[in-house]
């Protein structure tokens, strides 16, 4: 019985380990970089709706809007008043991974999301 358990465990570990190595994509060798996005806020939300970056990137958002907005990035808890007719710059380092909704605090509506993939 003990021998059988040992053999079964060994086979499981080998097969599962092998499968893991086989399926896992090669970690990208790229090092964290500078990323910059132009965001337009309108009645329909944010364009682009989603900002996708990787952990560790230095991000700059250049935000323009057609009406005053109090922009809030959840998780990172960034908050900024954005006025029409000017470009508001928001910079941060992407040290949290996950999907963080971006919201207009004045109207409590969701504009879009910031997606930070683990590196």
């Amino acid at each position, binding site marked *: 019985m003990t021998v059988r358990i040992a053999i079964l465990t060994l086979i499981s570990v080998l097969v599962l380990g092998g499968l893991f190595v086989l399926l896992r994509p090669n970690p990208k060798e790229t090092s964290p970089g500078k990323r910059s996005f132009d965001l337009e806020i309108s009645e329909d939300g944010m364009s682009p709706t989603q900002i996708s970056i990787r952990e560790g990137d230095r991000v700059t958002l250049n935000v323009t809007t057609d009406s005053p907005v109090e922009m809030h990035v959840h*998780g990172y808890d960034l908050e900024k008043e954005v006025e029409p007719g000017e470009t508001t710059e928001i910079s941060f380092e992407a040290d949290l991974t996950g999907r963080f909704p971006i919201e207009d*605090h004045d109207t409590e509506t969701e504009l879009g999301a910031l997606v930070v*993939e*683990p590196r």
Partner: protein
Amino acid sequence: MNVALRRAAAFPVVVLWLSLADARPALAHGFGQRYDLPVPLWLYLYGAASAVLLSFVVFGFFIGEKNAPGGYPRLNLLRFRLLRATLASPVFVAGLRIFSVGIFVLIILTGLFGDQTPVLNFAPTMVWVIWWVGGSLFVTLVGNVWAAANPLKVVFEWADRLTLRLGVENGLDPDIPYPVSWDVWPALALFFAFAWVELVFWGSATPRNIAFLALLYSSVTWAGMSFFGKETWLRRGEAFSVFFDILARFAPTEVRVTGGAACEGCDACGIENKDVCVNCYGCFARAMPEHRELNLRPPAVGLLSSEGTSVARVAFIVFMLSSVTYDGLLATPVWVSLIFSLQSIAGSFGALSSLFYGTLGLLAVPLLFFALYAGFVKLCQALGGGTGFWKLAGSFAYSLVPIAFAYQAAHYFTLLLTDGQNIFYLASDPFRWGWNLFGTGGYEPNAAIVGAAFVWYSQVALIVAGHVIAVYLAHAVALRSAPNTKLALRSQIPMVALMVLYTVTSLWILSQPVVE
């Protein structure tokens, strides 16, 4: 609840006849907000492949095995003086009960009189995050603390003692016999209502609603207890006692009464073996101290005992399994587009639409589960021969519990780790009246406590582990019920196929992007 809350943001409407309180959507940092990323495709496939492979390993483990695992090793914690002096001391037990009632009263008071913003009020975080998510995890992984400290039971006992002291004959002891045919149907009906509030009702995070609903549920419970007797209602009508009792079968601890007359006249235990009763809290409370055991045991063995598996109980377990899945399913793109197309065919009725389709789903998904489950059990029965359908359905239902629990844990542990932190500032200022009782009023939750990669790996690991335990349990059950080993193994094929299906569904939901 998360989904219900999102819907709250989508349908800021007048509350209809239910008008318990204003259903103002969660503000600022939404209550129940999570930042999880969907599990990547390759990891989803890896989890699914592992589940299938390991199912064969469990098969291999059982080949040639003649006997079903019978007893299991136990270690009575009350044998150690230190543990006996703490865990079994009247002071500890009384303290736990008073603490539990205190929390219950605080939930009601903060719900009624505190700030009505969900994240700034004690009640929503305490009920949904700490009690519901945290409590379920605790009961499953440690032991049935709900049975020991259920505040509704404690309050009832106090009231009972008071009426006796006031000279009322028999106190709150009833003389109405509980109708046998009711079985655990009242508990299932109430659990359905709870699941509806959690998953469908958009006002589930509003403090005042929580207080009202908790009071409503308490009244039903106290009425049930005073009509039919405390223990009868706890075993058949009190949804959470029935629910936590099923989860506690997984727990690595049990309460056991050996010898003595405590179990006599108890309809819940001693059916097969008159001398022993396990996890019957009424008997445990009545037993003499020398007959009580608080045992450590291997996890999940409690799910092997299949006594008391009536039709109603099978229905309860299947509803439990499916409501967990429904919770996750609600936020998947597939489900959302299904509801959209239903709305375009059958029509949308404004604010009521989400309630209608949500309720429809909460009925349809469990029925689908039940049909699927019954079909697979029929196949097992046909291949294995012997045992009756409902007995088989009952014992296999318990063996599916680890998969449901693993999904629940994978789905919610990040909520407990992030939103659970809110309890630190809420404990200091439960009403949002500017108090700072413990000096933690200014605590700022750390959203970065777990990274996405860690979450992915632990989710998949949890689900695969739950699957392996479930397959193991199902095998052990089959060995007990089938006439011989060969038939037992053969009868297992459909059940393992069902388990793979259930597990892969869980993994698939975790790999889906969450729809806002």
